[in-house]
């Protein structure tokens, strides 16, 4: 490989990118739009779940319970209902996700037996939300239940401090506020790098074929690896710019904590970029049309990266077959890496395994890409 030829190709490619608004738009505008779309659009936090209440007793006790719901930031009471048909209607119209029904004998049974029940009706068309809402509802009710128990003991003159039940003292690590954004945004960065990377290089060889410049290029003594490395270099530079761009947006705009080092981030990002840029380049070599190559690149990176990389949808919750497939999705390793760098501040040693997988991928893609390009018109 001759440095002189690499320089010539890299400079030429850089000038072409600079003068081609389409490439520049993909490179610089797409990260920006994706970051905002996915950063704001995707959230898994459930807050202010709308509920309806049907208080059939209307006593001091029942109102006290509903006060607990009102006070919780997880729920917002959207309506107070007076009959069952109204309740059904409210759920049908999606006025609420949960309806809380307090029976007419709520206080009576509480006083007589010391036990009572409330009914929660859940709209489970979205089972995930319903599950989470149900969990929150139980928490609210048991909170109230505790109050009642302590109150009763107090009235009986017992020293309730002595019979404090066991509690779990939880400490949340890495994402202390349990903000889903904190774990989604680093994933979004990974998705952006995957999309932009493959898009950019998917045009580079097909463009030479379409414009007829390839015929002259293959008549020169330049080698296939010189073409590949020379052409990928400027895109790696763009990838770094995009990565820096994403890092700044993630930390300063979205307020995601960045606990790792910039070095680890850029070292691993470079490795990932080599994989995605290589895949785009390979497609560009194999499919000699710009449109075709960029469409296939989009398809091949978009779906696996958004669905199977674990950036939003947890891999451990997928069926085993799908889990096995995700090992082939190169983005998966980068998503793991980038989340660990952002939130845990992980260094290279802690990330050795996913880095190793990416290395294998990079070596395979580079070898294939260098071999796929033949200096022939046959």
């Amino acid at each position, binding site marked *: 490989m001759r440095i002189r030829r690499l320089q010539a190709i890299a400079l030429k490619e850089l000038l*072409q990118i600079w003068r*081609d608004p389409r490439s520049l738009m993909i490179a610089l505008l797409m990260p920006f739009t994706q970051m905002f779309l996915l950063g704001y659009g995707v959230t898994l936090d459930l807050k202010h779940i709308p509920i309806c209440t049907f208080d059939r007793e209307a006593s001091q006790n029942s109102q006290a319970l509903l006060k607990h719901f009102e006070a919780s930031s997880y729920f917002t009471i959207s309506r107070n209902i007076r009959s069952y048909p109204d309740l059904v209607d409210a759920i049908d119209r999606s006025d609420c996700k949960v309806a809380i029904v307090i029976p007419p004998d709520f206080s009576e049974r509480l006083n007589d037996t010391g036990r009572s029940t409330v009914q929660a009706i859940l709209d489970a068309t979205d089972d995930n939300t319903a599950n989470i809402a149900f969990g929150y509802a139980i928490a609210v009710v048991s909170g109230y239940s505790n109050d009642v128990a302590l109150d009763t003991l107090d009235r009986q003159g017992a020293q309730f401090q002595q019979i404090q039940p066991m509690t779990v003292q939880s400490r949340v690590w890495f994402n202390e506020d349990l903000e889903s954004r904190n774990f989604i945004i680093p994933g979004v960065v990974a998705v952006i790098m995957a999309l932009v990377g493959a898009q950019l290089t998917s045009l580079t060889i097909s463009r030479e074929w379409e*414009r*007829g410049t390839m015929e002259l*290029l293959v008549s*020169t003594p330049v080698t296939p690896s010189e073409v590949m490395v020379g052409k990928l270099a400027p895109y790696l530079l763009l990838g770094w710019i995009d990565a820096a761009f994403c890092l700044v947006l993630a930390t300063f705009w979205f307020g995601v904590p960045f606990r790792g080092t910039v070095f680890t981030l850029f070292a691993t990002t470079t490795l990932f970029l080599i994989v995605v840029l290589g895949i785009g380049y390979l497609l560009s070599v194999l499919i000699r049309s710009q449109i075709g190559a960029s469409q296939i690149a989009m398809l091949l990176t978009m779906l696996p990266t958004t669905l199977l990389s674990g950036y939003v949808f947890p891999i451990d919750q997928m069926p085993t077959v799908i889990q096995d497939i995700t090992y082939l999705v190169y983005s998966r390793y980068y998503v793991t890496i980038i989340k660990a760098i952002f939130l845990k501040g992980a260094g290279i040693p802690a990330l050795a395994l996913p880095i190793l997988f990416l290395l294998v991928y990079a070596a395979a893609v580079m070898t294939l890409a260098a071999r796929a390009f033949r200096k022939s018109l*046959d």
Partner: protein
Amino acid sequence: MNGAGPTPQAAKSDQVIADDLVKRFGDFVAVDHVSFRIARGEIMGFLGPNGAGKSTIIRTLCGLLRPSSGRAIVGGIDVARDPEAVRQRIGYMSQKFSLYRDLTVEENLRFFGGIYNVPRIELRERMRFAIDMAGLAGREQALVGTLAGGWLQRLALGCAVLHRPPILFLDEPTSGVEPASRRRFWDLIHSLASEGVTVLVSTHYMEEAEYCHHIALINHGRLIATGSPAELKRTAIGGDLLLLECDAPGATLEALQDAPDVRDCSVFGDALHVLVGNAEKSLTELPELLAAKGLRPRHVAQIPPTLEDVFVQLIAADGAAQRAAA
């Protein structure tokens, strides 16, 4: 080595050798057993209709296409064995313009200078030469896409000779270029050849073929005649050519169709070119024959054939031979 055949000296000076070259694309035979040699400093012109296989031969010699059989030796190197060594020694201008239109004149030259590894100290001077040669002084910073045809072709030639290749392959370098620019382009080719550069150039302009030292006529992938323009005009047509000026070329043409000893007859403006076996005989016979049909040519004379006459005649004869064989 004896005196017979090409002397070792002459053989050594052959820069391009095609030896029984065949190129097939599926069932289609694009190049059909073609052999020729081009000596150092010689300009060889490929003449032939579109689709005759000129570009395919050139691409095969450049190592861009693999020959189905036969050998191509360029600069003393077997193209199939070491295509990269060949590529360093050749300059190539493809039929379709293939410089980067979104780069400037200077950027294109610098790019090819880098690709061919032209020493940096020399590159400046060679770029200067290429720019002056192309007449692009003052337009170094212009985007190539904004330049007119003649400039583009000369710039492409400039890029092709930037690394001083001893051999040049030019595939229809002047197609679509205005006559004045074409003339200038050929002056450049001649000055390169006089410095010892071997040139293979294809064209479909007859008058351009006259500028070549040797011509190869190509039809349906086969070489149907080779020789210098003078040789071809003297011998390849296989007869004598008469110019016949008359008032009714249409009727005269018809009258001559089955005249004895007339092999071919075609209209050139308000005159006819008539190919006959023997000029002396026909010069007396034809006017009599026409007079018998009430036609009186104004003037009949033997003329030297142009390359176009030769070309038309050979292509027609080849077509007839093909049909007869089929």
